[in-house]
């Protein structure tokens, strides 16, 4: 393959940075010890693991003992939510508040909890993919055990008012968890300033390796164990630690935080050029709030076409993107996130998500802006839906 690849699917996963790869390598062969071992090589591993934890704690503004390594975002979400639910239930609190457009790692955990006797309030989001802290305040009840609201949405890129929601929860004595998988390393996250009790993060979303993540759990909040075994992670998660992963995650996060302003500015510039250029295509629409938006997210619907065929044709041009169409989700329904924003099904099928990283270039933007309009036009030319829209048999929805 010598075709230029334009990778704009960084919300799905990122390439590892040189910094992260470099940080990982020593632990694969030289310092391979088990941090639980008594001997020198094991004790070196333990020290290195502690260093990684310390670095992450500093970057999140918490204490080392408040950071627990996991296998990634999904596991962190599962454990944090189940733990808070279990703790609430012990005190007779079995009500949980969330939003309709969380990641499935959160939604499916909550659906499961509903079958176990918990009651869940799913707050609707507005047409821009936002909620207000007041909405959370109004939904809190005496028996509310947990509020879990994502920091930033993975599909439409909206950034939610997490600090305000955290404040509401703190005042009401309700545990607040946030799935910050798309936020950490991209926008400022400070668990103290933002009143966060529990937070999920995942290394592969900020140029770290896949299969490693962490939970921040404020020391006043109990964290329950779900993987039983050895006493790793202070007894909260058994299993020999993924030191190489943890070290690489810490290095990647440090790098991301050091360069956050610079990277965000670069991404924002590219993002805005993409949005402006793509919205020139007739009957297109930006999804998600323009202002409260991740610097790297573009999500646009094109009326009259279907997302998967758009992705396949973009891929043939070397452009790697994503869509919320039904046919890419493997179900008959388009993405729950786009539907939550109130988009009609037929419009949601034609969505395109481009998620940038600092590795993207002006040239990438030019390629996307050159190829996409042609592909959209072609797909519209063979689309019976577009035909009936253009003939006026059906009204244009966007």
């Amino acid at each position, binding site marked *: 393959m010598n075709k230029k690849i334009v990778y704009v699917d960084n919300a799905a996963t990122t390439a590892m940075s040189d910094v992260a790869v470099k940080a990982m390598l020593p632990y694969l062969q030289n310092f391979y010890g088990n941090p639980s071992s008594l001997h020198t090589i094991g004790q070196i591993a333990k020290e290195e693991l502690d260093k990684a934890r310390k670095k992450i704690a500093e970057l999140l503004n918490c204490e080392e003992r408040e950071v627990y390594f996991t296998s990634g975002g999904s596991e962190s979400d599962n454990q944090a939510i189940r733990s808070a639910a279990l703790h609430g239930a012990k005190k007779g609190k079995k009500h949980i508040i969330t939003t309709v457009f969380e990641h499935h790692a959160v939604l499916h955990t909550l659906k499961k909890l509903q079958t176990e006797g918990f009651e869940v309030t799913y707050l609707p989001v507005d047409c821009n993919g936002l909620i207000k802290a007041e909405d959370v305040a109004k939904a809190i009840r005496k028996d509310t055990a947990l509020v879990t609201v994502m920091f930033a949405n993975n599909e439409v890129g909206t950034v939610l008012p997490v600090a305000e929601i955290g404040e509401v929860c703190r005042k009401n004595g309700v545990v607040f968890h946030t799935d910050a998988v798309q936020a950490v390393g991209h926008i400022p996250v400070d668990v103290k300033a933002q009143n966060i009790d529990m937070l999920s993060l995942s290394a592969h979303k900020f140029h770290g390796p896949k299969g490693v993540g962490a939970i921040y759990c404020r020391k006043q909040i109990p964290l329950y164990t779900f993987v039983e075994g050895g006493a790793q992670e202070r007894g909260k998660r058994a299993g020999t630690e993924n030191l190489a992963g943890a070290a690489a995650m810490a290095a990647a996060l440090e790098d991301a935080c050091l360069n956050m302003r610079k990277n965000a500015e670069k991404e924002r510039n590219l993002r805005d050029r993409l949005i402006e250029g793509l919205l020139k295509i007739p009957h297109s629409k930006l999804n998600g709030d323009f202002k409260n938006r991740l610097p790297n997210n573009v999500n646009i619907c094109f009326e009259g076409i279907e997302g998967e*065929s758009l992705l396949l044709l973009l891929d043939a041009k070397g452009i790697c993107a994503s869509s919320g*169409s039904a046919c890419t989700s493997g179900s008959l329904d388009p993405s729950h996130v786009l539907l939550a924003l109130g988009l009609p099904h037929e419009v949601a099928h034609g969505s395109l998500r481009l998620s940038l990283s600092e590795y993207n270039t002006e040239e990438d933007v030019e390629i996307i802006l050159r190829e996409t309009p042609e592909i959209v036009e072609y797909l519209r030319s*063979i689309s019976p839906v577009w035909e009936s829209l253009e003939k006026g048999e059906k009204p244009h929805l966007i």
Partner: protein
Amino acid sequence: MALYSEKVMDHFTNPRNVGKIEDADGIGEVGNAKCGDIMKMYLKIENDVITDVKFNTFGCGSAIASSSMATELIKGKPLSEALTLTNKAVAEALDGLPAHKLHCSVLAEEAIRAAIKDYYDKNGIAYDKSQFPEHDAEEEHSFTED
């Protein structure tokens, strides 16, 4: 992309018989935009033989490739033969489709039936109604999987 066979990708990127027939003898449109796939088939029919066929499709790679393959399979064939085309035959001719994509090939089979029915109706030709079952939204997406 490994999601689809080379055959599917070939029919998706270079669809055969794409377009419209202005003076079509039968037109069939199936699916709905809500579910994500819509197919419209245009047939030209002479002496009970399909002399030309074109399609327009709104849908995924599987839907477009299935439309293309289905048109190839019925072009030049008598109506009686076209009516026996199954989604399974379309999927097989494409060297297979991922299981969750089979429903898209059902639409191709249905679009052909709908276009032939349209031709019969327009020309007052009697036919066995059981050959053209009504589909509700659910049934549109049932498929045979083995």
